């Protein structure tokens, strides 16, 4: 009996936009398609951090609405400001599928067989099937594997739901409708092992994983709706007319009569669900992406691997991978090295690059930099280098006359790759200003290398739309913002003459500071959509000794804080 793990990525197109533009996390994202008459129709939408104060008034935007209608719904539920915040993008089905295929290759760390999930309507697939037959115990069991997959994806900023079952259809159904399984859990006496946890930044939602024990899908998936079988809408309607709304009711009907009365699709799906017929899996294209493996005859101690010999081995493997790519003038943007050990899951080294490259030495350097920080299993049985994503190499035209010496942007790219490899992806960032009044949210740290091997953001056709609906103002004027911002405002003892007046004296780090000049207040009252509203009066203060500080008075409790220094 095979075991299939399905990873479902809800609203995949929106998640992909967020991967490319993390600064849009606090804004509603609306993906649109333009029809031949120029009408914009919403195909998907999402809001990663919606207003916490209005959980019951979530905007009910459905795919197929016109953009104007969606904006009206958004304004009605979250206020007109939300409309101004909205980030409108053109949908890009091809890009979504390519990104999913890249993610599929990246998921080979969990299982060697990764396939794309079923396509839903015209939107393409948003799930992955992994064959985990006999490999789950490497990760400590099926539930541990599901949790590991969730954690690893969450660490990459991806929100997913995971289910493990006997067949792809059953696993997909369980991943897609886990809330319906919860009701059945009580009936089946806790045979299921569903768990709810909170991971990463998607705190307001619950990450769920489900393991359906072998051979029990008939009992446990009975309460799911018919849509879980991906039946055609008219078949669902016809079945609903005769009172069949759940999978369990459908399974109780005679298969022979179903075959006579409905399309063969219905019985086929039932067979797929129960594992009576083998369901074909769609594997990601790009199977031509090279990989190279070196399997040792006997397990090698990992402490022998570190050093010159290992570097040489890696160079050979990377060279093997690069050879076909170089001929096609493509370069590697993402690479993974798997070190298979004894009795546990493989150790995976991810290398994400800033620009595509075909330099073997550079890639090996990056791998070795990462290796310094990783604890290996005691014995290694095989080393695999696998290319996860490639991109066309930039073509540089030769110049006839030597122009001004341009600094090597390639040198900077190499530097960024090295820094990101050793310090971690999130330690190398490019700041991007965000139009937000709250000082903490006025900029976003965009990691520049290795975003799950997803491609870099490319110019979108929907930019005009975005400009029309998004707002383009930049951060506050220079001089009014400090050079250093404290990660958390520090409470201060402040003497002020009037209860609402400027500070006269304050005490910081055990020293009294007499205020010489003061500018303020600058009232910032915002972020109602992020939780408790921020209500502050900011003052720029210069002390008698010449230091310049940024203080604010919280209007909620009338207490003073230091938020930054003009260092």
């Amino acid at each position: 009996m095979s075991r299939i793990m399905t990873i479902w990525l809800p609203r995949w197109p929106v998640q992909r936009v967020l991967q490319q533009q993390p600064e849009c996390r606090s804004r509603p994202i609306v993906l649109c398609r333009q029809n031949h008459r120029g009408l914009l129709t919403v195909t998907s939408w999402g809001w990663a951090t919606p207003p916490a104060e209005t959980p019951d008034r979530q905007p009910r935007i459905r795919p197929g609405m016109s953009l104007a209608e969606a904006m009206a719904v958004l304004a009605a539920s979250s206020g007109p400001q939300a409309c101004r915040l909205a980030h409108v993008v053109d949908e890009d089905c091809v890009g979504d599928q390519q990104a999913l295929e890249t993610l599929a290759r990246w998921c080979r760390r969990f299982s060697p067989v990764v396939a794309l999930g079923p396509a839903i309507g015209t939107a393409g697939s948003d799930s992955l099937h992994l064959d985990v037959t006999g490999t789950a115990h490497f990760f400590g069991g099926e539930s541990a594997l599901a949790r590991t997959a969730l954690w690893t994806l969450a660490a990459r900023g991806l929100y997913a739901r995971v289910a493990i079952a006997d067949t792809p259809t059953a696993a997909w159904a369980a991943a897609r409708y886990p809330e319906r399984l919860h009701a059945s859990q009580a009936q089946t006496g806790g045979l299921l092992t569903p768990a709810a946890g909170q991971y990463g930044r998607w705190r307001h939602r619950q990450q769920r994983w489900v393991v359906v024990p072998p051979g029990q899908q008939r009992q446990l998936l009975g309460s799911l709706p018919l849509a879980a079988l991906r039946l055609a809408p008219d078949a669902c309607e016809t079945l609903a007319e005769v009172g069949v709304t759940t999978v369990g009711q459908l399974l109780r009907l005679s298969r022979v009569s179903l075959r006579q009365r409905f399309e063969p699709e219905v019985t086929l799906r039932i067979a797929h669900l129960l594992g009576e017929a083998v369901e074909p899996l769609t594997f990601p294209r790009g199977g031509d992406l090279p990989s190279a493996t070196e399997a040792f005859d006997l397990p090698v101690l990992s402490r022998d691997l570190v050093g010159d010999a290992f570097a040489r081995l890696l160079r050979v493997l990377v060279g093997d991978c690069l050879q076909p790519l170089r001929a096609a003038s493509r370069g590697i943007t993402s690479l993974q090295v798997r070190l298979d050990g004894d009795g546990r899951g493989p150790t995976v080294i991810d290398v994400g690059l800033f620009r595509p490259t075909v330099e073997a030495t550079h890639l090996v350097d990056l791998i070795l930099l990462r290796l310094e920080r990783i604890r290996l299993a005691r014995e290694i049985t095989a080393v695999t280098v696998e290319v996860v994503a490639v991109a066309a190499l930039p073509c540089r035209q030769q110049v006839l006359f030597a122009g001004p010496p341009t600094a090597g942007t390639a040198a900077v790219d190499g530097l960024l790759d090295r820094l990101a490899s050793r310090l971690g992806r999130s330690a190398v960032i490019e700041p991007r200003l965000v139009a937000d009044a709250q000082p903490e949210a006025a900029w976003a740290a965009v990691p520049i290398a290795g975003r799950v091997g997803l491609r870099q953001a490319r110019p979108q056709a929907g930019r005009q739309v975005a400009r029309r609906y998004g707002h383009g103002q930049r951060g506050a004027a220079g001089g009014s913002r400090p050079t250093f911002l404290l990660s958390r405002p520090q409470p201060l003892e402040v003497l002020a003459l009037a209860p609402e007046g400027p500070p006269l004296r304050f005490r910081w780090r055990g020293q009294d500071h007499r205020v010489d000049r003061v500018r303020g207040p600058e009232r910032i009252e915002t972020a109602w959509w992020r939780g408790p509203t921020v209500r502050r009066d900011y003052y720029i203060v210069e002390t008698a000794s010449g230091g310049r500080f940024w203080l604010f008075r919280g209007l909620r409790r009338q207490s003073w804080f230091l938020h930054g220094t003009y260092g």
Partner: protein
Amino acid sequence: MSVATLASHSSAPLSATRLQSLKRLCRVQADASASCSQRLTVSSGLPTLDQLLPHGGLRLGSLVEWLEPPAETGVEAAAGAAAFALAVGVRLQANADLPPGRALVVIDRGGRLYPPAVVPWLEAASAPSSASPSALSPLPSPARSAKVTQRGDRQASQHASQPGHYRQVTPRLFVIRPASDADEIWAIDQALRCAGVAAVVGWPGRVSATVFRRWQLAARSSGVVGLLVRPAAARHEPTWAETRIQVCPARAAATGGTCSVRSPADKASRDKANWIERRACTLVRVGGQWDAVTAVAEPAATCVLDLTDGSECLAGTNGVGQAREQARWRRVACRAS
């Protein structure tokens, strides 16, 4: 004290290893002085600072230390040392005499940097507008650009000051956030080694002499300028930085400086109101390599930084005059070096 006198004073015959090490030292020193004289000098973008620097500007491939005021004043993190370092970094990144497209790297240990204060400077420095003096410096013609800042090449520098086409390059700022001291040292070293970087700004805490020397060699190998903000206690430590500048806050009103973006009509009223746009600091050169303690004369100057675009406010000049002043300083810098 030269090697020869050292050798003559020691009574015991020098062992072979000691002699070797002394010879090596000699060679290192000769290398250092030779490469010092060959390296290019560029304007730091702040005319007052240029005047203060020993060679009339910043030498490419050198380190500059910015000392905060002493801890007993209680304003060490709020005195403006980092603002000056960042301003110089931004000016270097936008410097028309250097190849375009170079990056500014900030090694931000502790995650303290607030980019909304710095990004407008970068944009102002790279955008060609009459308000920003650095943008007035034209891009030299391709054939001559390599020689513009060469020592004594006055003709080339005069050609370079002709009105020409302006560069438009998107400014690149990268912020690196190392989690440990070892990572910070490594990151600064790597950034200093990369020729595509214009300047590296960092605020390392304790730095051993070995590490400092490594940074200096790294900077020299690539021509990157390292701008290190150090606590005041570092003044009594040996340094491999070429220049060490103590930053002390001064009153902006006392200097009477005016900002570049100012029409004469409402100058007086704005002067009073807009003190937040300016930052006046006294810059004191407290000796450079090895002579931090024994330095006798400490040249000082007051520099007023325009916090709206990270340039310097020059006293009693409007925008055009300031640009002219800047051009004059550039020429002076070239001649002096």
